[in-house]
């Protein structure tokens, strides 16, 4: 049973490059209400404030919200990268985060070498690594390219490699940012199929996207993030009808219905 619980999570970024607050900053802070001071009187940006939710097996959660609403920061916090300054995150299950296409890959190393590093990180024995490399090559359709440095790949190929790798190591919880949309149409179909098998196997998927269609097709729950806080939490229809202007919502719903 996979589980992911966020409890009153607050994350703030220290701003070290502007120790003293100028007039412009003070005005900006008053306007956005997200600059604050921590207990040592350092200037901080409050990226997430008091975010709580809990996910269980079978949940497919989508995050919506404008740029800078804290979606990516929340994904990073859920992955355990940023440790919250208050509140807690509980992760029960193997977690993988697809946050940016590079995903900590070394672009000077070959595809196969990057796969090996990821496998070692996930604790795979030597005997499993070749199988993993074959699996990624097959899914990402990168056969001969895996022996070339990743920097020679096209951006679409990097995305395919990253996605294939992240899903090949069989995470129980998968966190994805919207860059996955960079794939071409046929790859999107494959990716969706692979994710569906994964989610059907009773796992958790968390997706952050600006595309309402994608959210409607893939998610059964949506959280609307606004200025680092949860503004709404519910089914895709409920949240998206409040989040989107009516005509865009109707358009997205129609498009999603056609795709399904």
């Amino acid at each position: 049973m996979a589980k992911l619980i966020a409890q009153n999570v607050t994350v703030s970024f220290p701003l070290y490059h502007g120790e003293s607050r100028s007039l412009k900053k003070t005005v900006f802070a008053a306007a956005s209400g997200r600059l604050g001071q921590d207990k040592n009187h350092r200037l901080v940006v409050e990226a997430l404030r008091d975010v709580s939710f809990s996910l269980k097996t079978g949940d497919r959660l989508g995050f919506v919200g404008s740029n800078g609403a804290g979606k990516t920061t929340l994904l990073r916090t859920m992955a355990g990268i940023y440790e919250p300054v208050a509140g807690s995150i509980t992760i029960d299950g193997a977690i993988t985060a697809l946050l940016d296409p590079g995903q900590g890959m070394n672009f000077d190393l070959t595809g196969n070498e990057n796969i090996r590093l990821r496998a070692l990180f996930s604790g795979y024995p030597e005997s499993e690594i070749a199988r993993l490399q074959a699996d990624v090559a097959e899914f990402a359709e990168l056969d001969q390219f895996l022996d070339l440095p990743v920097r020679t790949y096209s951006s679409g190929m990097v995305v395919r490699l990253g996605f294939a790798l992240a899903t090949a190591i069989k995470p129980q919880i998968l966190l994805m940012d919207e860059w996955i949309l960079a794939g071409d149409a046929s790859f999107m179909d494959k990716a969706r199929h692979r994710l569906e098998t994964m989610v059907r196997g009773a796992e958790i998927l968390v997706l952050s996207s600006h595309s309402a269609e994608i959210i409607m097709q893939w998610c059964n729950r949506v959280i609307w993030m606004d200025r680092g806080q949860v503004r709404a939490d519910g089914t895709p229809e409920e949240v998206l009808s409040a989040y989107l202007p009516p005509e865009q919502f109707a358009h997205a719903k129609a498009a999603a219905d056609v795709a399904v």
Partner: protein
Amino acid sequence: MNLIVPDQGKAEVSRQHSATTSRPPIVIAPSRGWRDGLTLAAADIAETVRLWPLIWTLSFFDIRLRYRGSLLGPFWLTLSTAIMVAAIGFLYAKLFHQDVAAYLPFLAISLVLWNFINTITSEGATCLTQSEGMIRSMRMPHSLHAARVVMRNVLVLGHNLIVIVVVFAIFRTTPNISAFSLIPAGLLWGVDAFAVCLLLSIFGARFRDIPPIVSSIMQIAFYMTPIMWSPTMLMHRGYTIALVKLNPFFSLLEILRGPLLNMPLEPEAWATALAYSAVLLLLTAFAFIRARSRIPYWV
């Protein structure tokens, strides 16, 4: 060995293995107090130890990548050190009125070891900022990056040892019985190298002025420490010898260099080296406990 029911042991092993694959839930919350912080810092280092195959492969790839497409490959390390030792050795032996047969082995060890210290400090100070991509893409122990720098430089040191061996063979220098102390000395070097990397990486991530400061301090230390010159040259120059004896780099070099150069065990150098190491470890522990959870925000 239970020969009557041999299968029992096997079944036990496989059950234990499946138990370890389902890990307990991870709870990430701000640490409350020092004890909590210490537990989390220790868990970070324990995780790094568990991931040693990854660290080994990362370091191996680092070296291979550096020399990918070159004819000699990593043996450029050996060759450039050999040329350096030979060129400087003959010139400075004349300059300092030293016997080449005594000076060259001394210089070979000193330069190779100093090279290790110097790259450990400079690469240590930047290792977290350079691994930004990895740090921001997945949860991994932060001490792993320091361990990677140490492992990579141990591999480099391995290539440079060839120079020392060759120089020793040419001049027939043989280490004496006190060479047994090389084992604890090597261990101390390993621990200190890891601690120095971790400490500098934390400060280097938080304050971007640290890497240039470290490199200029190391440059001064190179001339202040008996590396090119031997401390015996200062024997009759009064209190300047105190400057050498209090130098942390000197005591650390001496515990490895002395036994190799057929000198008796030096309790004084050992005491100084251990004292400095203890201070270093305390400082590192303090900094790591305080800063560990903030590292991803800094890089």
